């Protein structure tokens, strides 16, 4: 059976590498996008089961991407990863369609844990 896809969307190359490393023990196929627009292309190609999303990016921001994906009605589980963890912004992200909010700096085990949980909750990524 094919492994589920996890798409990392972050403009920071090192952070993408850290997330990829953190997911090394999780049975999944990790893909990357360095911007909101690149993420949309990746999602059109094949919707991932789980998406790890940064909020601040050049061009299309994370919140804009979140809204666009919600409008598409995808079953992808979206986990926001950000250091901007104020109550009001977390609430907005959840209201805009995020399924979870992970605070930077993160612990690799924390990432593994939430992604495993999201993969279990997302049997298929297609709408």
């Amino acid at each position, binding site marked *: 059976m094919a492994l589920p896809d996890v798409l990392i969307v972050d*403009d920071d190359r*090192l952070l993408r*590498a*850290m997330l990829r*490393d953190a997911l090394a023990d999780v049975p999944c196929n990790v893909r990357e996008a360095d911007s909101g627009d690149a993420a949309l292309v990746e999602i059109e190609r094949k919707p991932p089961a789980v998406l790890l999303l940064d*909020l*601040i*990016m*050049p*061009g*299309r*921001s*994370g*919140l*804009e991407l979140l809204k666009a994906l919600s409008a598409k009605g995808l079953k992808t589980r979206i986990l926001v990863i950000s*250091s*901007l963890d*104020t*109550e*009001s*912004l977390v609430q*907005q992200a959840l209201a805009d369609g995020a399924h979870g909010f992970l*605070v*930077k*700096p993160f*612990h*690799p*085990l*924390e990432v593994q*844990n939430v992604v495993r949980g999201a993969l279990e909750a997302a049997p298929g990524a297609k709408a």
Partner: protein
Amino acid sequence: MSSFWLADSDARVLGPVGLDVVRDLALRGKLNDVRAVSKDGKTFVPVREVPEIQQALAVTPKNADELAYAQADATKQIREWLTSIKGRSSEEVFRVPQNGSREAWRAAFFSLVYRYVPGRLPPEATPELRLACEDAFIALSERMVDIERQFRASKPSAPSASAMQATTLQVRWRGGMIHVRLILARGDLQPFTADFENTWKHDSLFVASAEKLMVNTPADITIGFEGHVTQIHSSGRVVGVRTTPAPGFSVKLLDLGEAQRAMIRTWVARAS
């Protein structure tokens, strides 16, 4: 309600967010690099041209006295808590029964360690508070490493403890840069001290390798520490190359945060 897009000096954008979100973020000191604002996500203008945003960004968290008092109090509480958990079992500290599942242990660990992550501290945090958080973070992480090891040991295919005791090093070229993966055995501080001009105090690392490199070669570094789940990832530049007495090169780590420096500092202190 009005929505705004905020752009930083790297043209990275946050938005759309309401004024309440901007105020909350500013109060927490999380918006220190806002350079331009947009009301439609397309046209950006300098912050000074949007008075409501300029006003929201000008909010300061607390006055200096209140902040100093709160930080001293927080430091005292963390120190007292650290003293109180000495000699207590992990079951008591994490409040998980001895037969708790791996997930239960991890959930308890994350909920507890979250408040001590040094990187979560505001820039104005005192060194005492920062150090107390680092100590709490390390104390909890070490306990969790032991717990994870117990779970791994229960699997027949798990690697033996002895297999983890030697420092391992991988050096390879990829994508125009040198990739170094170093897993340090407990007590090994040689990479942080071998090149006296480029030690851990200079955010530098010596890699004992015969690879022929030039100064300024870009590098991608991963450092693992035996007994710790935390790894350090950083980009870097080669700052020195030597052929004797042992060949190798020194790399300046360019992305170290305070938590990572604390990790290295603690490792060196324990190995010395």
